């Protein structure tokens, strides 16, 4: 067995008893700042942290599930290797790394680097894994990277790339705290916690007579109940509503002529096309009142400011790229794109990212990767099965799954189960024995986000990254993801040992003169070995980890040191606006050190950048002519087709299932132990309209069966008058297998929605699945009185 190079060898050892330790909630992208108490290495109390610059003390109930995420019956304690009979044997890290390295090298050398793919990384509040896994993929020179953003949000990034030539590190977000008028689509933020403090924001929108909230949602959601107007759109028909709104504005000449003249290219052909679209017909197809649609269009255009707030409900539906395009069209023609109180580009921490035109294409579908938040393109997870089963010689043969659970979280479970079985190698890097880990060749244990140094960096209105130390000690053999990738890269021979000079320079790098010399020499030495931009970047990252990393509290932090310097070099105005002591520093690397030291000194999160919203459009629209290119001929062709063709419904599947309702008791698939859910439940019912239920003879609590063209599931019925007729909802994040506390046998918690999703029901441009509009039929299986489902539902 070859010698394995190690930098981290053993768990982080925070104090076993501590009070008021700052950290963050990793259960949703809101990332509420927390203070926790620890006793005997166990989290005993969790409170909102008023010193967190984003959430200022706010949390929801879910943060109290963190102890269930940290300690549970399915933590992986050792590296595991699957035996031919399907059971696992404990192996050493050295054996795991050397065997995996050998198998990956075999695939890389006999086939192609792209035959090795990566799925996952990041999650909601643990973003450090990406700082190890992406340099590994760079070193490997494989662009095959799949991430959950590719089944949710890449359509927006594609639209922003095309219209504004936007860089991947921005997000065109509603200025929800200040806008006079909010059009809200496909989200229920009062429950799902979007924004700085959604409950307060929506209370103000509901009660402030100067502000107006229009909610588009088939369901009478908690947010819709606070709306000035609620348009109950037919599930998945948002595209018609947006076409109708645009048509009204264009036909009535309500566009912001000054903004359009200054910032929009090709308004005329767009207007001409929309002249031919009948808003009344669009309202009918969307299932909303024509008057409501017309009034909303007029108000949106004529309000002093207006924003559009959107999320998954318009992302996992048919035509989601066109929906995203139309959102941008509406914002642009009304003068609300890239402006204060409208939708503004917000940017995450780090150096300015480049716009990279050329992106890898999937072999089978030709769908192009789309960069979003990360500098590399993201491919949609639901093309993974066909990329594995294809006969192309460069097909995926090895898959590394890191911080994801494709057999629960990716669409079409059956397709994934069949495809994963055909892989030559499946490696799962995870703290828990997930459904995907159960079928892996190797399972490599990591600490959870409270047992290692971690980092969270979703973009907010201000630049507020949070680097946080571990708060409890994890399993002895769990290794942070970047260490695993470092060991693999070295064992595979992808990256040589760091030149000795870099160790010497690293000890002097935390200095305004030493920093640029260290970075410069590392880059030069990496470039001398050739291989293109990505392998060079991979070498630099690995050498930083090995040299500078060894001088820091934890080696992966070395990448944050580099990002701090990149941030100070490329975004000085934002830094100076938020951090007064940066203003007098002439050397940008002195400012970089200041940024890095602030990150280290503020585990509760720190304000490191503010940007005035004036000039937001100009700063983020990178088209050579400075204008948004609003007329996209292929998308306009799609819109023409939509306007002239009536939508079809399959009579065999008359119901539309929203596959993933947000409730107070779901947190994606992050918390596996169902004991965190309290209350009466059932927490994972099939929710339907009482009149539909009466017609079908279904009563509250009856066991019902849903059948789609891909499969069938069963669950208890829950009748809800706020659900539209013909519509169904099932909460997301269920369907995991967890040991029964009494018998120890694996038992499924709630419904696995992805059994119903057809992998081919997806957006042609992005591959985003139609998980929010699954056509299905519903029938009663068992009446409530002899229904045992409630008992089997959850341990709670």
């Amino acid at each position, binding site marked *: 067995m070859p010698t394995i190079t190690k930098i981290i060898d053993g768990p982080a050892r925070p104090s076993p008893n501590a009070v008021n330790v700052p950290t963050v909630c990793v259960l949703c992208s809101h990332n509420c700042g927390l203070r926790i108490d620890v006793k005997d290495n166990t989290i005993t109390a969790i409170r*909102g942290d008023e010193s967190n610059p984003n959430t200022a003390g*706010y*949390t*929801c*109930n*879910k*943060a*109290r599930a963190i102890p269930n995420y940290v300690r549970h019956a399915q933590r992986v304690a050792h590296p595991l290797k699957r035996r031919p009979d399907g059971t696992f044997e404990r192996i050493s890290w050295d054996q795991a790394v050397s065997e995996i390295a050998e198998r990956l090298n075999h695939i890389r050398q006999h086939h192609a680097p792209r035959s090795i793919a990566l799925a996952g990384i990041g999650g909601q509040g643990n973003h450090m894994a990406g700082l190890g896994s992406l340099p590994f993929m760079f070193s490997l020179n494989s662009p095959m990277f799949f991430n959950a953003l590719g089944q949710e949000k890449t359509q927006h990034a594609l639209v922003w790339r095309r219209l504004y030539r936007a860089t991947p590190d921005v997000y065109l977000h509603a200025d929800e705290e200040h806008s006079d008028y909010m059009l809200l689509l496909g989200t229920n933020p*009062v*429950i799902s916690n979007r924004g700085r403090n959604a*409950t*307060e924001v929506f*209370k103000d929108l*509901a*009660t402030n007579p100067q502000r107006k909230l229009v909610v588009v949602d088939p369901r009478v959601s*908690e947010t819709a*109940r*606070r709306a000035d107007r609620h348009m109950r759109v037919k599930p998945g028909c948002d595209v018609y509503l947006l076409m109708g709104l645009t048509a009204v504005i264009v036909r009535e000449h309500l566009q912001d002529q000054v903004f359009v003249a200054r910032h929009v290219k090709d308004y005329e052909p767009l207007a001409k096309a929309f002249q031919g679209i009948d808003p009344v017909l669009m309202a009918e197809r969307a299932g909303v009142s024509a008057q409501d649609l017309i009034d909303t269009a007029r108000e949106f255009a004529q309000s002093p400011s207006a924003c559009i707030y959107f999320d998954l409900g318009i992302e996992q539906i048919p035509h989601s790229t066109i929906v995203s395009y139309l959102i941008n069209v509406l914002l642009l023609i009304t003068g609300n794109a890239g402006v204060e109180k409208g939708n503004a580009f917000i940017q995450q921490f780090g150096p300015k990212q480049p716009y990279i035109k050329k992106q890898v294409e999937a072999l089978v579908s030709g769908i192009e990767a789309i960069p979003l938040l990360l500098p590399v393109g993201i491919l949609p997870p639901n093309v993974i099965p066909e990329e594995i089963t294809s006969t192309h010689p460069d097909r995926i043969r090895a898959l590394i799954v890191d911080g994801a659970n494709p057999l629960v979280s990716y669409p079409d479970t059956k397709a994934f189960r069949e495809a994963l079985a055909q892989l030559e190698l499946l490696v799962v890097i995870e703290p828990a024995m997930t459904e995907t880990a159960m079928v892996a060749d190797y399972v490599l244990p990591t600490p959870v986000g409270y047992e290692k140094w971690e980092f969270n960096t979703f973009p907010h209105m201000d630049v507020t990254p949070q680097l946080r130390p571990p708060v409890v000690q994890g399993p002895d053999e769990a290794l942070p993801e970047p260490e695993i990738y470092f060991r693999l890269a070295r064992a595979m021979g992808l990256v040589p040992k760091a030149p000795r000079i870099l160790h010497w320079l690293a000890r002097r790098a935390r200095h305004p003169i030493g920093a640029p010399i260290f970075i410069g020499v590392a880059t030069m030495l990496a470039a001398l070995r050739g291989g293109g931009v990505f392998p060079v970047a991979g070498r630099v990252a690995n050498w930083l980890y090995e040299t500078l990393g060894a001088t820091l509290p934890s080696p992966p932090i070395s990448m944050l040191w580099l990002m701090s310097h990149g941030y100070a070099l490329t975004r000085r105005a934002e830094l100076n606006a938020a951090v007064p002591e940066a203003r007098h520093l002439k050397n940008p690397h002195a400012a970089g050190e200041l940024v890095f030291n602030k990150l280290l000194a503020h585990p509760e999160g720190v304000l490191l950048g503010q940007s005035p919203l004036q000039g937001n459009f100009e700063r983020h629209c990178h088209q050579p002519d400075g204008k948004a290119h609003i007329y996209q001929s292929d998308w306009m062709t799609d819109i023409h087709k939509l306007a002239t063709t009536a939508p079809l419904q399959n009579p065999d599947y008359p119901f539309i299932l929203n596959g993933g309702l947000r409730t*107070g*008791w779901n947190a994606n698939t992050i918390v596996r132990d169902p004991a965190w859910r*309290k*209350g*009466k439940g059932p927490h994972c019912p099939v929710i339907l309209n009482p009149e539909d239920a009466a017609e079908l003879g279904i009563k509250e609590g009856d066991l019902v069966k849903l059948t789609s063209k891909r499969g069938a599931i069963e669950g208890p019925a829950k009748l809800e008058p706020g659900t539209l007729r013909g519509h169904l909802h099932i909460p997301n994040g269920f369907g995991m297998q967890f040991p029964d506390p009494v018998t120890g046998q694996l038992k499924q918690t709630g419904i696995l929605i992805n059994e119903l999703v057809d992998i081919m029901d997806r957006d042609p441009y992005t591959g985003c699945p139609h998980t929010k509009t699954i056509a299905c039929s519903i029938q009663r299986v068992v009446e409530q009185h002899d229904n045992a489902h409630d008992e089997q539902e959850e341990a709670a």
Partner: protein
Amino acid sequence: MTFVVTEACIQCKYTDCVTVCPVDCFHEGPNFLVINPDGCVDCGICVPECPANAILADVDLPADQQHFLQLNAELSRYPAWAVINMQKAPLPEHAQWLAVQSKLDQLDRHGA
């Protein structure tokens, strides 16, 4: 913002809500529960638990229940109204009182 226990709770006091509160901000009187508005984190997780549908967000309070906002704040501060976080049996006559609309005159303020 805060959530508020309204009139429907009086004389029923099911206490399903107290088991789900993440911040233990329910306080108990002899025949009514209240939410401490300073402790409430607005998560709303208690709302569907109540068999009497007595818990509402402050913004959703109908006109005839507006005074419960102040009443929750006032009673939760009174020392005799202790924190409750374990479910107990509802009051004996809960079933008769569940459908009664107007029962504020039944409220036992427990000296507050």
